[in-house]
Structure formats: C-alpha cells, structure tokens
C-alpha cells in the first residue's frame, strides 16, 4: 500500500487486532471476571482502546459486565499557561465510584508519562482505588520524563523525539492503522 511521504506503517490492522486480543487475555488473566476492576480510557484517544478491549472481552471471552469510563485530564496537566494555546477539555464520563476498585488506565501511546501523571491525580477525584495499573498500545521507549512504566504494553517502539506516532481507528478515522511519521 502506498503511504504519504515520511510516513511508515508501524502496525497494520491485522497486527492491531492480534495485539488487542493478547492485551485482553492478559487483562483477563489478572482480573478474571472484572468484578472489582474498572477500565478507564484517557481522553481523547485512549477511549478507543478501552472500548475495543471491552468489546473483545465481552464478545469473545464472555465477560458479563465491565465498567468502562472516560477520563479527561486537561485540568490536571502540568503545562497550563506554558504553551501558546489554551488547553481544551473533552468529556469525562465515569458514572461509578472507583473506591476500592482496581483501576486499569488505558491510553494509546505512552510517551513522556506526563499524561499518566495527570491521570493518576485526576482519578483520585472519583475515589481511592485499591490499585492502579497502566495499559498502553504503543510504548515509546527512551522518551520518558517521569518514572512511569506500563503493566501491559502492545508494542514497544524506539522513536526519536522528532517522530510522531499516530494511531487511527476505524470508528473515527476510517481504518485501523498506526503510523510512524518522520520529520
């Protein structure tokens, strides 16, 4: 398939499919019936991963009920007033308490770790979880600003700082594919 200049396919639709199934199995291994576990997708793009995982777990592994919420971290970010643009929020939708629950934070790309730091603070507004884990589809190695590592990772990538990882979803962008975009 021809791709635009400077853009390389990191994961194809089929690879994404396989990886999501593996991640679902790993979650299942640790959380079984998801009775005390909730999945929290980080806005804006971690929500797609969370919803896909929920779908796989329910349809293919017969998990009866999984709580999935969406968390927006805009108001918890540490770069307020540090860029030129106003930080715009998106919807938070968590209609259950996370008190004493095992929370799995879910994002598409783990890069500096700052979003996760903000999410760790933000989730406290909804209670005190008994445990927090991190699942990420793409883990950009060697680019962390904070001591944060995922418990579940889809694919580890060595990308240099100028490069960008772009995750596209069928329901939002027309197809499942992950690109590595160069300078």
């Amino acid at each position, binding site marked *: 398939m021809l791709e635009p200049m400077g853009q390389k396919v990191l994961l194809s639709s089929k690879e994404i499919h396989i990886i999501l199934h593996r991640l679902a199995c790993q979650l299942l291994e640790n959380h079984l019936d998801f009775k005390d576990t909730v999945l929290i997708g980080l806005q804006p793009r971690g929500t797609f991963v969370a919803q896909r995982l929920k779908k796989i777990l329910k349809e293919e592994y017969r998990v009866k009920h999984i709580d999935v919420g969406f968390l*927006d971290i805009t*108001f918890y970010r540490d770069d*307020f*007033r540090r860029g030129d643009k*106003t930080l715009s929020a*998106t*919807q*938070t939708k968590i209609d259950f*308490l996370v008190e004493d629950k095992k929370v799995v934070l879910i994002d598409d790309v783990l890069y500096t770790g700052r979003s996760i730091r903000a999410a760790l603070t933000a989730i406290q507004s909804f209670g005190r979880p008994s445990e927090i884990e991190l699942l990420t589809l793409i883990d950009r190695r060697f680019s962390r600003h904070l001591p944060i590592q995922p418990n579940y990772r889809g694919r580890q990538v060595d990308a240099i700082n100028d490069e960008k990882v772009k995750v596209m979803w069928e329901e939002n962008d027309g197809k499942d594919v992950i690109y590595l975009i160069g300078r």
Partner: protein
Amino acid sequence: MGELSVQHLLGIKYLNKKDIQLIFETADHFKEVINRSIKKVPSLRDITIANIFFENSTRTKLSFELAEKRLSADVINFSASQSSVKKGETLIDTVNNILSMKVDMVVMRHPNPGAGIFLSKHVGASIINAGDGAHEHPTQALLDSYSIREKLGGVEGKNVVIVGDILHSRVALSNIFALKLQGANVKVCGPKTLLPKHIESLGVGVETNLRKALDWCDVANMLRIQNERLDISYFPTTREYTQQFGVNKALLDSLDKEIVIMHPGPINRGVEITSDVADSKQSIILGQVENGVAIRMAVIYLLASKIK
C-alpha cells in the same frame, strides 16, 4: 476549540459569538467537575486572584470565590467598606498596591459604569467585571444564557422577555447583548419610566403590558426593583408595581404554554414574583446559581490561560 478573543472580561459587548460558545463548552466540563465528590481541579495553582468589591454582593462574590477555589487559585478578598478607600485612596492606587503583591487577575465590582474598562487600561492584570454600576454584569448574562441553553436546548430563535427595572439594571444590558449575539428575540417590559429611551436601538422590542409579553415569550427573566438606585419616584407605589408587573401563579397558569421563569437574585418575594412562582417547577432560579459557578470557572480558566 480555541481561545478567547479578549484578555479581560469587561462586558458582553466586547465578546463575539465564538467566545460565548467556547465559554459554554468549557463550562459544561466544569459543571461535571463540580458535581463530583471531589469538586476541585489543580489547573490554576500558580495563579492569584483578587476579588475587589466596592459595592455589596452576596451571590456574585461567593460564586466567584468558589469558582476560584475549585480551580485551586489563591484568593484574596477586599471590600471597600473596610479599606483605605475610605481614607481617600484612588482606584488605580488601590489596585496597583494589591497587584504589587503579585496578583495575576482582578475580579471587580464597582458602582461607576466603565470602572473595569478604565482599570484595564492602567494596570497589568487581567480584569473580570463583576458589575459596574448600571453598565454591564457579563458573567450574570453568560450564566443566564447558559441556563436557557441547558433548559431549552439552545438560545437561538427563543423569545426572551426581561421584566422590571431596565433603566438601572446592568443585568438587563448584558443580557440583551448576550441574547442578541446568540440570535434570540428579546423584549423588555416594565413601567415606561423604568425603560431607557431609545432602547429599541439595541434591537429589542418594548412592551408595557406584562400579559402580552408573557404570551409572546418562552423565557421571562424577572428583575428586581433596585430601590437603592431609585433617586426619584418612578412609579406610585410598590403595590401598584406588583399589580401591573408582578408575576403570580394565577397569571402563569392562565397562559396557554409553560414558560421558564428566571431571576438573577436577590428576589423581593411578593414584589416582582410571588413565592409560589419562585419555588415552582417552571423556575430555574437555583439552577442559575449552580451554573454561575461553572460559568465563572470557565471564564477564569480561559482568561488565565492567556496570562503569560
């Protein structure tokens, strides 16, 4: 989403439609935040805000202070009655002294129209007008429109009547600007003596018959008679005013539709509206107060993002 076109919120007159849209969308998120069990976000932890009130206020002052605290800003409060203003200090000196203590934003209420605009030209902080004389009260108008949007799904094309003392009301003027900007149809209603001359030039209709106004409208915003600003008699007696321009349950029930009743507070129960109307299902008065915090958080957040 983008950013506000202004550095200060001095009046609705200086905003555009996109600004209002952005404030409402941001307020939606803050409304969700203030309904959590932990109602606070850390966004503004490095911002200090001074609330400077040269005129009395309960609701607005509390609402601003709460909004600032929910955003984790540091807050200092100042009221003119307990200050050096009494000793002859000028407005600019007062504010500059406060700003020397490294304050980033000033929320000000002042009895003189244009006080906020004047201040914004002379000091370096971001200014939010919390009411300047009979001129503007922008956050009140924003929360009023936001409440209409929430209740009726939108503001555009809705018929809104503002009833009462239009002449002395900053709420009326800001509401007219905000509603017109969003495409609502606006009428004012009250005794002729309390309607400013040439108010039609703002694009609003004038109605002196309350019944006709209520028949026409989807929303009635009831204003209080501002006795403290009435230097002469504008109507014979309060009782006569109530008979002509007060809304009661019988009047509401006689309309062939259910209209929304709003009031910016403070209410003079039994004068502009009766208690059973104020506490009825049609009234969204307490919803307005809740929305006030979310709207003020949005305004403060968006203006603070522009402080470098």
